[in-house]
């Protein structure tokens, strides 16, 4: 079956523009995660959904970041008024279960470059 897919794979935005990044998780996966990976760093947690409920958004760096998963499947991460420090790879992951021990399956990421 298909894995986690993300689109677009690459996005260049001018500072101040809004962007929307899409994640299609594995069908049937209850949990969905967004991570931010800066150059040369490991992924950092942004937010977590259980079905359509956003249970944790503690990692979102500012109120310019917004995520949604309205029907419990596809998710969108939106960044308003992009800044240069937003340049990073944004990874989406999904998992079948609810606990911390369940394997997370990662998508290829969206590389965002803010100029």
């Amino acid at each position: 079956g298909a894995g986690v897919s993300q689109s677009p794979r690459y996005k260049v935005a001018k500072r101040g523009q809004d962007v929307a990044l899409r994640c299609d998780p594995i069908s049937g996966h209850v949990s969905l995660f967004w991570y931010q990976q800066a150059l040369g760093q490991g992924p950092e947690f942004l937010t977590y959904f259980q079905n359509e409920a956003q249970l944790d958004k503690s990692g979102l760096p500012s109120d310019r970041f917004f995520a949604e998963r309205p029907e419990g499947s596809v998710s969108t991460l939106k960044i308003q008024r992009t800044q240069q420090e937003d340049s990073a790879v944004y990874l989406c992951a999904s998992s079948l279960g609810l606990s911390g021990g369940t394997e997370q399956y990662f998508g290829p990421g969206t590389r965002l470059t803010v100029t």
Partner: protein
Amino acid sequence: AQSVTQPDIHITVSEGASLELRCNYSYGATPYLFWYVQSPGQGLQLLLKYFSGDTLVQGIKGFEAEFKRSQSSFNLRKPSVHWSDAAEYFCAVGAMGSYKLIFGSGTRLLVRP
């Protein structure tokens, strides 16, 4: 607070040589520990995971890792490296009741022919 340290930013080994990538974690309770591999332009792929039980865990692609509670370590090993193993490797920690993963900063593995 949970944290993961991967002390080696880069490691270079010759093809066929053995490999050990270091990972140290900080966590109050028994953690869930993971190793992921990331090839250029690819997402992270799970190599292996430790939850409980046998402290030596086997993973895919011939990798294994050993959990040492006394040293707070979870080092990744492979007896004979192949050129296709060149990639970035991430150690991560999770916990029961917590869904998020905390990642280390990664170790880039280079393989000499």
